[in-house]
C-alpha cells in the first residue's frame, strides 16, 4: 500500500505539472500547400463543415477541421476541462456571447486584437462588438450570429379567435387571457424555467443590467427594478393560469406547438428552424412580430448568438484569426452560413444583402427579415459577467420552484435568490464585488 501512496503522489505531482505548463504565446508560423497549418474547430452549428469546406478548397495552406459538438454548454465544459488539463483544446471554438467572460476569466481565449484588421470592428453593431471585447482593448472573438428576440404567433388561430397582435406587454397579457378563456386547452406561451437565456433576453429588453464593471469590481444587478418587473409580470400570468408553466424544448412542448395548444412563442430570430423542426405540420401558419414592449418603449433583448473564438492553447493564432474573420465577414462565407446553418449573421451589411427572402417555413410572411432587422436594431446593451453559468443554473433551480408554486411572490423570491447565489459565488471566488 505504501508504494501505491508514493505512486499516487507522483501521479498527482505529474498531473499538477501538466496543468502548470500549457499556454504558449506563440502565434505560429505560416503554412504552405504541401505542409499546411492544421486547425481544429469545435462548433455545434449544423452543417458548418460545409461552409468550412469552401475555405479549405480556397486555402490549401490553412486546413480547418470541424469537430461537431453537442451544443453550447457541453462544448464550453469540454473546453474548460481541456484548458485545466493543459492539452486537448482546439484552435477555434464556437462560443456564445454569455460564455465569453467565463472563458476569459479562465484564460481559455487568446487575445486576437493584434492579429486582426482595424476595419473588422466596423462591420458589427456596437452592442455585439462590446460583448467580444468586454469593453476593453483586447479582442476575444469574432462575432458570428445574433439572436434578437421575436414574438411568433399562429396567425390562423389569432384570426379564428379574433385576436390582434399585441404590441405591449399589457396587450400580450390580455391576449393570453382571451385565448385561454376562449379555449382552455390553448396558451399564448409558457414560462420556461429551463431557459435562462430566454429570461435574460426578456430582462435585457427591460433594460436590466445583470452584471456591470465598476472600476476594478463587478456589480451584480439582477435583483433590481427591471428584472423584478419582468418576474412580477410573468409570475402574475402564471399565477392566474393565463399562460403555461411547463419548460420549453420538451417532447410535450413540441407536441403543443404542433397541435396548436401553444399558439404563440417568445423566441428569437432563429425561431423558424426550431418551429420547422418541432412543429412541421404548422408550416405557413405562423407569423413573426417584434417583441411586445413595456408601454411603447422600443427595446429588445438577445437570446443566443455566438462568436468564433481562438483558444489560448492554439499554436497558430494568426491563421486561426484569419479563418475566423473570413468565416464571419466574407460575403461568400456569410451567405453560405445563412444557407447552410440558418443563422442570423452579426455582420449587419452582409445580413442585409444575404437575407432577402423569408425562410421557407415563413413563406406566408415575405417581410420576415424586415421584422428581424427591426428587432435586431432595437437590442439594448447588456454585459455578461464571469459567472453566467452560476446565475443561469440558479435561474433553473429557483424559477422551477417558482413556476410550480405559481405565485408572484415566488417569482420575486427567485430573482432575489439568483442575485444572492451570483454574488456569493463571485465573492467565494475572490472577485471584487461592488455593492
Amino acid at each position, binding site marked *: 500500500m505504501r508504494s501505491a501512496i508514493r505512486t499516487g503522489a507522483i501521479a498527482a505531482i505529474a498531473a499538477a505539472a501538466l496543468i502548470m505548463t500549457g*499556454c504558449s504565446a506563440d502565434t505560429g508560423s505560416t503554412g504552405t500547400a504541401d505542409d499546411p497549418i492544421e486547425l481544429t474547430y469545435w462548433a455545434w452549428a449544423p452543417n458548418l463543415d460545409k461552409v468550412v469546406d469552401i475555405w479549405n478548397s480556397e486555402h490549401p495552406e490553412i486546413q480547418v477541421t470541424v469537430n461537431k459538438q453537442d451544443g453550447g454548454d457541453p462544448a464550453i465544459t469540454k473546453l474548460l476541462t481541456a484548458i485545466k488539463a493543459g492539452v486537448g483544446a482546439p484552435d477555434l471554438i464556437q462560443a456564445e456571447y454569455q460564455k465569453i467572460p467565463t472563458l476569459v476569466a479562465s484564460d481559455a481565449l487568446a487575445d486576437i486584437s493584434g492579429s486582426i484588421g482595424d476595419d473588422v470592428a466596423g462591420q458589427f453593431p456596437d452592442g455585439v462588438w462590446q460583448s467580444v471585447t468586454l469593453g476593453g482593448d483586447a479582442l476575444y472573438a469574432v462575432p458570428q450570429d445574433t439572436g434578437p428576440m421575436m414574438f411568433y404567433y399562429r396567425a390562423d388561430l389569432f384570426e379564428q379567435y379574433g385576436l390582434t397582435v399585441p404590441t405591449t406587454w399589457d396587450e400580450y397579457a390580455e391576449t393570453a387571457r382571451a385565448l385561454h378563456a376562449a379555449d382552455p386547452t390553448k396558451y399564448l406561451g409558457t414560462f420556461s424555467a429551463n431557459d435562462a437565456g430566454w429570461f435574460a433576453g426578456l430582462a435585457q429588453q427591460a433594460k436590466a443590467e445583470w452584471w456591470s464593471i465598476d472600476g476594478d469590481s463587478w456589480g451584480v444587478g439582477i435583483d433590481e427594478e427591471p428584472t423584478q418587473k419582468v418576474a412580477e409580470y410573468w409570475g402574475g400570468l402564471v399565477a392566474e393560469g393565463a399562460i403555461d*408553466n411547463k419548460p420549453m424544448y420538451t417532447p410535450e412542448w413540441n407536441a403543443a406547438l404542433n397541435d396548436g395548444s401553444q399558439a404563440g412563442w417568445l423566441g428569437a430570430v432563429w425561431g423558424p428552424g426550431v418551429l420547422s423542426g418541432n412543429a412541421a405540420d404548422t408550416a405557413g401558419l405562423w407569423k413573426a412580430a417584434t417583441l411586445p414592449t413595456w408601454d411603447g418603449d422600443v427595446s429588445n433583448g438577445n437570446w443566443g448568438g455566438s462568436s468564433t473564438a481562438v483558444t489560448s492553447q492554439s499554436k497558430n493564432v494568426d491563421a486561426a484569426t484569419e479563418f475566423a474573420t473570413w468565416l464571419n465577414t466574407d460575403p461568400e462565407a456569410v451567405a453560405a452560413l445563412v444557407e447552410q446553418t440558418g443563422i442570423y449573421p452579426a455582420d449587419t451589411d452582409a445580413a442585409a444583402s444575404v437575407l432577402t427572402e423569408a425562410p421557407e417555413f415563413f413563406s406566408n410572411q415575405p417581410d420576415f427579415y424586415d421584422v428581424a432587422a427591426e428587432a435586431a436594431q432595437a437590442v439594448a446593451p447588456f454585459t455578461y459577467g464571469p459567472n453566467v453559468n452560476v446565475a443561469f443554473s440558479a435561474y433553473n433551480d429557483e424559477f422551477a420552484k417558482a413556476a410550480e408554486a405559481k405565485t408572484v411572490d415566488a417569482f420575486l423570491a427567485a430573482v432575489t435568490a439568483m442575485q444572492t447565489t451570483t454574488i456569493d459565488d463571485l465573492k467565494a471566488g475572490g472577485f471584487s464585488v461592488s455593492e
Partner: protein
Amino acid sequence: MTATVDAPRGDTTPAPRHPLAPRSPKGPKRRRAKGALTPWMMLAPGIVLFTVFMAAPIFYTLALSFQKEQVKGLGLGGDSRTREFAGLENYVSTFSDPEFLASVGRVLVYGLILVPTMLGLALLFALLLDARRTGAKGFSRVSIFLPYAVPAVISSLLWGFLYLPAVSPFYWIFEQLGWDDVPSLLSPGLVIFAIANIGLWGGVGFNMIVMYTSLKAVPSDIYEAARIDGASEVQIAWRIKVPIIMPALIMTALFSMIATLQVFAEPMTLRPLTNSLSTSWSPLMFVYRDAFTRDDIYSAAATSIIIALATFAISFLFLRVVQRRAFGQED
C-alpha cells in the same frame, strides 16, 4: 538446451536438466530473489492498473479537495488566478449547504422506496423461475433481464416520454376512460416515484439473475428431502431456499444501496422535462453541477470524497450488521 548454457559458472554437475527444474544448490540466494519476484510480477498488472486508474485519481481528488482557486479584481486575463490551500473550507461549505443535505435526504427516501421493492420483486421472480412447474423459463428469464441491458439514459428518455401527459399513451388511455385528473408523475411530489420506477425497471432483472443463479447452485436433494417430509412448494421457498441464498440477497442489497446513493443518469435525463428536479437533486448531480456548471472542481472534489466515505461507511455498517445474522452459524 545444454548444461554448459544452463549451469551456473563453476558448477561441475554435468547432468542436463529441465530448464524449469530447480537450479544448482550452490545458488540459494539467487533462487530466493527470483522466487520472491515472481508473485510481484504476477501482481504487477493489477497493481499498475489500480495505481493508475484508482489510486492516482483518488489521491488527486483528495489533493484538489483541499485547494481553491482565487482571483483578483475583475478576474479577467491570465495572471489574475491563483491556486491556494483551502484547508477544510470546501468540506465545510458542502456540509453547510442546505441543498447538499436535501439531496442526501431525497436519495435516502429514494432508496427506501426502491431497494425493498426491487429486491422483493427480484426474489419473487427468481423463486417463481426456480419453481418446478414454471414453464417458458428461458423466455421469462431473458425478458425480465432484458431491461438491465438498456442504458439508464435511454430508459430514462423512454420513460420520460411515457410520463409526459401530452405525449404519453397511458394518459391517452386515461383520457378515453374519462379519468381527467390523473396527476403527472413528473409533478414535484411524485417525481421520486417516477425515478424509482426507472431504477426498478432496469434493476430487477440483474438482481433476479444473481439470486436465480445462486438458487441453481443448491443441490436438489435438499428439496427432495423436504418434499418427503411433506413441505409444500411455498414452505420450501420460504424456509429453505431463502435462507440458503441469504449471502446472495445480502450482496444484491449492498450493491443496490451503493447504486442508490449514486443515482445520476435518471434524474439528469428527466430534469429538462420538468420543473420538479433541481440541478442538485441527487448528491452526484450536486457534484456534477459544481464541477461542470459552476466550474469549481475543488468543491466538487470535496463533495466526492464525502460521498465516497459515506458509501464506504454505510456498506461497512450494513455488512457488520447483517453478516452476524446471516453467517453467524457458519463462523
